[in-house]
């Protein structure tokens, strides 16, 4: 084995990206907990914790640039670095979305829609993220495709949830049964935003899988 230092740097980049993904998954988990428990303080913790993710993101971006500028990577190494460079952006965005969720946690006060299972959707997106990062770590193409299929389910869950909320809202309006219409509207819009943000977390999971697939076998099937 030659170019030892270069190989070490590649290994470090992989480890660091995986570490960042664990931090981001943890943020998302906390945000979901905060939502479930309507815990504003926990939500706030997710928001302030985002600085760490941003810092990680910028550090890793610089590491990728350094590797490209100084080591002139080619072939599989190049695809690995290019994929990592894109994946850290998706991870950073997921963390941003987690801060959104953290923000909603302290604001929702009513249990308007017990049938909308935010936790189920949240768990599904978390699983997507973990599967995608596994594909990146283990270099397994099948797992990348699996993430794409999981996203179809998440999309369906999100669509069904949004529809349920909107239908109910129309019904309420027709019945004129809501006394605190402004409060309801605020909660409903927060709920719809939560659903949309989770759906976007899933999209970023697919992006990660798509870049991993490109990395693994130069295959752009999952890139849109």
């Amino acid at each position: 084995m030659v170019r030892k230092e270069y190989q070490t740097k590649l290994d470090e980049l992989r480890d660091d990206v995986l570490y960042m993904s664990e931090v981001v998954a943890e943020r998302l988990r906390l945000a979901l907990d905060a939502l479930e428990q309507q815990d504003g303080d926990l939500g706030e913790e997710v928001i302030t914790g985002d600085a760490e993710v941003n810092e990680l993101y910028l550090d890793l971006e610089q590491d990728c640039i350094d590797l490209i500028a100084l080591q002139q990577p080619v072939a599989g190494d190049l695809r690995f670095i290019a994929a990592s460079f894109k994946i850290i952006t998706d991870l950073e965005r997921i963390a941003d979305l987690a801060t959104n969720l953290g923000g909603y946690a302290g604001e929702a006060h009513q249990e308007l829609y017990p049938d909308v299972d935010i936790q189920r959707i949240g768990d599904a997106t978390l699983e997507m993220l973990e599967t995608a990062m596994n594909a990146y770590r283990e270099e397994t193409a099948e797992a990348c495709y699996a993430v794409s299929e999981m996203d179809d389910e998440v999309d369906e869950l999100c669509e069904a949830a949004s529809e349920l909320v909107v239908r109910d809202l129309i019904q309420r309006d027709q019945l004129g049964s809501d006394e605190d219409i402004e409060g309801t509207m605020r909660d409903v819009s927060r709920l719809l935003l939560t659903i949309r943000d989770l759906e976007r977390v899933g999209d970023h999971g697919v992006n990660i899988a798509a870049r991993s697939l490109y990395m693994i076998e130069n295959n752009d099937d999952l890139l849109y």
Partner: protein
Amino acid sequence: MSDSYHIQETDADSSSSPDPTPDDSSTDDTVRPGETDDLVPTIEDVPESQSVIRSEDLTVHYGDEQALQSVTVGIPEREVTAIIGPSGCGKSTYLRCLNRMNDMIDAAKISGTVRFRGTDIYAEDIDPVALRRKIGMVFQKPNPFPKSIYDNVAYGLKIQGFEGDMDARVEEALRNAALWDEVKDQLDSSGLDLSGGQQQRLCIARAIAPDPEVVLMDEPASALDPVATAKVEDLIADLSEQYTVIIVTHNMQQAARISDKTAVFLTGGQLVEFGNTDQIFENPENQRVEDYITGKFG
């Protein structure tokens, strides 16, 4: 990827048989990613009509040592083809076979064929000197003659008995070698007084003055500083509009920067992969090529 074919190793009985078994590499051997047998070369097939030089089963021994192992490939016209590989892989040997520079090495034993525009260049009636006017060469170290700049460029034309407007041809060659502006006022001074980078461009001017079709370059920039290297690299890109350029280089980044096609030779004188340069550097078919270009061995 669809234009890549396996070339089966023909167990070279090393006779330069003019009629090799017809189509020993059948087309249903198309390589798919991940299915590559790393011991089988992946050679993009350049159609006869587009290849200016074609070697078939080219094998070279220096004494007992095998320097090239049954190399079959077509070199496309008016493109830059880079030949890369570790030391001793046979890349310079291959280059030298293309204009019979190996004739000068007594111990070299060559079998197989090299065709230039369909003509076997090792046929008995071929004059190597005339061949080298069509297939010129630029060497690693700039080697201008101890003559004036003008005479360096005019040399090949004079030998050739050129009777046209010599001044115009010299100027054209120097212009094409991106040297004219720097030397036009000192054409009578010695070529040896130029800087290393200028000397190399003078050698390129000398090589293209007889209007060859192919320019072979053996590490043409390895003795030059980065600025002179950049000028030679720019020049190579310009040259490929008019000429077919085949360049041997140790510098993989240089190959990536300047070539359209890349040929990777690995130890034992085997051509392991030949194809578009972007394909080779982004997603080589052969694991051994991947390991070599990413620096895992070599």
